[in-house]
């Protein structure tokens, strides 16, 4: 199987046809948690891309040496190590963003996309396709995060990346920010809307009754 893998598909499939969030419905928890504002959503997305790509490469390099009994533990140790490094780097070079994300960077460890990709892909494939798979899935996840974050910040706070977008005249005319957008349930509803839109474009994703 390993030699038949098409690198292009590995990289681009997770963006839409096989998106980890809206098709496989993995990693929903962090979509709820970090998307009330756009900026933490972007930093979170980039961090997940980095961690996932490197974890995939490392596990793929080790894949023939890992004893089967403890493979999940090995994967966890590698992911946890990388996440702590990312957290430390953010604290040193992007202190404000790391302050905003606080515990959520640490929670990347528990993101099911990571374990899913390591177990399903990196354990069975060579490093280069694994790297592309990690980048692809990470970007697929980041895309959804950014779309959800965009709508939640715009409709919930009237800003984007902290800049006021909805003009004051709207508020004077009686427009009110939708407080519901800030609450976690709205993230789920937005994800559901994305799934709806995506499936209406991709007929082959629709399930038969």
């Amino acid at each position, binding site marked *: 199987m390993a030699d038949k893998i098409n690198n292009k598909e590995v990289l681009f499939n997770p963006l839409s046809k096989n998106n980890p969030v809206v098709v496989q419905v993995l990693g929903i928890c962090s979509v709820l948690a970090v998307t009330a504002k756009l900026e933490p959503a972007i930093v979170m997305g980039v961090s997940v891309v980095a961690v996932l790509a490197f974890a995939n490469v490392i596990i793929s390099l080790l894949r023939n040496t890992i004893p089967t009994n403890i493979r999940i533990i090995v994967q966890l140790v590698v992911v946890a*190590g990388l996440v702590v490094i990312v957290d*430390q780097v953010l604290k*040193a070079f992007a*202190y404000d963003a790391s302050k905003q994300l606080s515990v959520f960077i640490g929670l990347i460890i528990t993101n099911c996309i990571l374990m899913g990709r390591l177990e399903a892909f990196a354990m069975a494939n060579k490093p280069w396709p694994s790297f592309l798979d990690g980048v692809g899935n990470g970007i697929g996840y980041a895309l959804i995060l950014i779309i959800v974050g965009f709508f939640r910040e715009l409709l919930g706070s009237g800003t984007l990346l902290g800049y006021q977008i909805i003009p004051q005249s709207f508020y004077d005319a009686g427009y009110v920010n939708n407080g519901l957008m800030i609450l976690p349930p709205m993230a789920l509803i937005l994800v559901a809307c994305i799934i709806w839109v995506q499936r209406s474009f991709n007929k082959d994703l629709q399930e038969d009754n």
Partner: protein
Amino acid sequence: MNKQSNTYTIIYIIVLVVVVGTALAATSLALKDRQQENINADKMSQILNAALITPDKKDVVAEFDKYITEQFVVNERGEKVEGVNAFDVDVAAQIKLAADRRELPVFVCTVADGSHKYILPVYGAGLWGPIWGYVAFDSDGSTIYGAYFAHQGETPGLGAEIEKPAFSSQFEGKQVFKDGRFRPIAVVKAGQQPLNGEDYVDGISGGTITSKGVGSMLDNCLTPYKKFLQGLGQERQ
């Protein structure tokens, strides 16, 4: 070599943990100074924020040295304690001690018009984690000149709103001494008033527990400064 044997497994995991541990220790050591600089600069900018000065990110340290003309530590009786650096006092650890044993840092800020503002740190609990802040007093020891609050992980859009100027600017001009009695500012639901008639600000709707946390944080952390603030007021008269 049998990769499924216990010996292989144990040796494998030991090697892995040592390698990962070394990598983490190395990263932590390499980045420590930078991180500490960031943390210090962040603390300085928070202190200045309380005195309504918003320094540019690059010159935080210079601005801090320019405005904060004196820092010292007092005890509950309002006397200066020698030999303790106010900036290094860990407020989070201090609030666990009994009020009469605490080291209470004071930052004196000389603002543009030459008057002194006294900035006091506060620390408490929100809904999900710690909240903290700095409150700047006018030299009468009663009027609040400005306040700054921050949090670790309050809900964005709800409890997290305490860090917005919309919340903290409500404190400006409030008095902690009213009718000769010391009562730190209460945080109440919008539209309500506190029972004891002290000065109050509106809490955040949807962030009730965080708002209450701010109220009890002010109670807990400002009360030990009572003598010190009183002293400031008398000095002026």
